[in-house]
């Protein structure tokens, strides 16, 4: 099993897609709930597996292009088939996932070997009949959107018009139409004329959930820009600029690194955006640009460990963040296979662990606690015993129910609300 690099529920929550470092996509489908087995409340089973991207080599630049799937985004379902976008560093692909559970039988045009019979030997016209067969799920690439990004793609986002989507790399954002693969519009370009003057890169981008003209993108400097595509063809000038002034007392060698935003997500309502930087999650109101309305400390005990985290490269880890269906709870990952949830209304938070040893199927997850100093209580873990190789970067929340998917390196955990 390979390291999971992205997790995403579809719009109904019936399907859950994961992408991994090997370029594969695995789709899970939720079982139909049955009266016979009420305790199996819709478990997720493997539905389809396919190889989305292969490693490539750019001969012009002598660069290997990784096959790792950076992001998967579902399209809303419009017919019996499912459609999703998957992307690696350079190429976005539209995949169609469809079922086949019938096959035609009764052809009399071929003999048993499969060879065509001589037409003069055929005297009867037989119309084939569709008979049921074992369910087969097939994935076919419907579009390949290539050669539009010089830098590494970090985000894709489907527009609410369901006709267009955008792909963002370090310096540019392109707008695509699903039907057209040989053209894209460049809507954001922050590349300086002289690369020596480069000071920031784009780290994530997302369309507004309802307004098809609006999108946001975050930067490595900890800022978010909201752009309106109606204003100009090239959205280099933002409509809104979200930035919180830096706290000078927290200044360190690594201030720039820990302020870099690794993920940005609109709330389902479209009223808020959430950003994740290395130590915090912040919720911003779109109507207030000068500071976030809420800031949550994910693992502030790491602030004194930034040196070692820089040495072992952990400080560059890009954590994602997600909203629950009602925008009342936000979730993000941490180290030691911990993940954190923050209830925005009650202001309570919880730390949970995704690990086989600590959770049997259908057992309740026990809250965890990190001890930051002084006397360590029995169930607490001290900061120095945290395993930094076990990181939860990717999580997903079902769009309407309390079901979460947590990717812990190469394992996928799915947790549900307790059934009474």
């Amino acid at each position, binding site marked *: 099993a390979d390291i999971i690099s992205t997790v995403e529920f579809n719009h109904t929550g019936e399907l859950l897609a994961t992408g991994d470092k090997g370029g594969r996509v695995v789709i899970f489908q939720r079982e139909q709930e049955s009266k016979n087995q009420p305790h199996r409340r819709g478990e997720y089973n493997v539905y389809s597996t396919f190889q989305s991207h292969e490693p490539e080599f750019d001969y012009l630049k*002598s660069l290997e292009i990784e096959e790792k799937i950076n992001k998967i985004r579902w399209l809303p379902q419009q017919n019996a088939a499912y459609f999703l976008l998957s992307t690696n*560093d350079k190429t976005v692909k539209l995949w169609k996932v469809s079922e086949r559970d019938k096959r035609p039988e009764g052809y009399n045009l071929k003999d048993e070997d499969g060879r065509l019979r001589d037409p003069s030997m055929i005297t009867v016209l037989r119309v084939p009949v569709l008979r049921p067969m074992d369910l087969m799920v097939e994935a076919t690439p419907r579009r390949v959107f290539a050669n539009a990004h010089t830098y590494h793609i970090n985000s894709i986002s489907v527009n609410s018009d369901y006709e267009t989507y955008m792909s963002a790399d370090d310096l540019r954002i392109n707008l695509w139409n699903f039907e057209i693969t040989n053209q*894209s519009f460049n809507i954001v370009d922050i590349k300086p004329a002289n690369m020596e003057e480069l000071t920031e890169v784009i*780290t994530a981008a997302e369309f507004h959930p309802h307004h098809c003209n609006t999108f946001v993108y975050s930067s490595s400097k900890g800022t978010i820009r909201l752009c309106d595509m109606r204003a100009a063809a090239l959205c280099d000038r933002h409509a809104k600029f979200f930035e919180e002034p830096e706290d000078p007392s927290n200044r360190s060698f690594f201030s720039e690194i820990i302020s870099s935003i690794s993920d940005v997500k609109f709330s389902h309502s479209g009223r808020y955006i959430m950003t994740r930087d290395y130590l915090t999650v912040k919720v911003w109101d779109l109507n207030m640009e000068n500071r976030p309305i809420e800031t949550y400390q994910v693992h502030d005990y790491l602030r004194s460990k930034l040196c070692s985290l820089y040495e072992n490269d952990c400080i560059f880890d890009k954590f994602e963040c997600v909203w629950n269906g009602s925008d009342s709870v936000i979730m993000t990952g941490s180290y030691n296979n911990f993940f954190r949830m923050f209830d925005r209304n009650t202001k309570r938070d919880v730390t949970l662990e995704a690990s086989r040893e600590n959770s049997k199927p259908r057992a309740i997850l026990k809250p965890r606690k990190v001890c930051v100093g002084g006397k360590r209580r029995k169930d607490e873990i001290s900061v120095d015993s945290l395993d930094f190789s076990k990181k939860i970067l990717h999580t997903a929340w079902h769009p309407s129910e309390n079901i979460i998917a947590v990717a812990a390196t190469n394992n996928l955990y799915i947790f549900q609300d307790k059934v009474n």
Partner: protein
Amino acid sequence: MECTLDAQSLISISLRKIHSSRAQRGGIKLHKNLLVSYVLRNARQLYLSERYAELYRRQQHYPDGAPLLAMPACPPPAAAAPPELAALPLPADTQDREARSCGAARGGAELLEVPVCAVPPELQRAPCRDSSPGFYRAAGSAGPGGGGSAAPGLLYAAGCDFASGGAPHCSSRTTVLDLDTHVVTTVENGYLHQDCCSQCPCCCQPAPGLASPPPAPGTKRKYYPGQEEEEEGVEEGEPGGGGVAGGPPFAPCTKRARFEEYSAEHPQDSSNISNLISIFGSGFTGLVSRQQADSEQPLNGQLCSKQALASLGAWTRAIVAF
């Protein structure tokens, strides 16, 4: 504020990261390297401010002043962990002054080390930095030099004196490869200059569908993609590698391109680190190459081009070629 790492270790760690990022699968990650460059800048600022402070203290003790201008103190070798740092590079024309300073330094404060004198001569002919305030000049000029943002009373001269001795290698040059258009732009001290390889026929096509950056004044050379292939087998610091396969002929270069000669195999190579400290600016500015050690070899156009291209490919790809 920080844990056990000091500025020097941070700098060497950061350089190692940048260097190893070149070998990573999937190409150089622009975002990560940008962040590492910020750490480098921060560490450099701290290191330099410590140097200024040290120098200022020495000036208080030794009011005769001149020799100490050239000899910022180095940490005693007893501190084994941080790499031993040589003093900042000096312009070529001050060699005799260096000797004098060196001697004076030896007789100077007990903390003063001699690594500067031990620095190979080519290091001392390293290029000046353009506008970095961290540049020391053993010119005997007391008082604050021109420009610069350091505190008054500190003895340094900001800016690079190109006129000094006309040393052939005293120029700062940064070479940038634009991955979109495959155009190489060489910027010297803030303005473009004629590249010695400007006669090279261009044979790359810019990637389709991408907007080209606005044309900049000065000469640009199309980058021949085959050259990059050569770079793979060339270690930094080696002369010319196997040569450029099928490369176009070049006119002999009057100015040679340079490259950084720090290497991951010598993380303790303090002289390289001090070089970078003096020339490193924010972002990617200031990653100026310095002369290769074996530049004493007689120049011929072919060697020049091979060296230039080998090193050019190496460093433009590492730092700016994204």
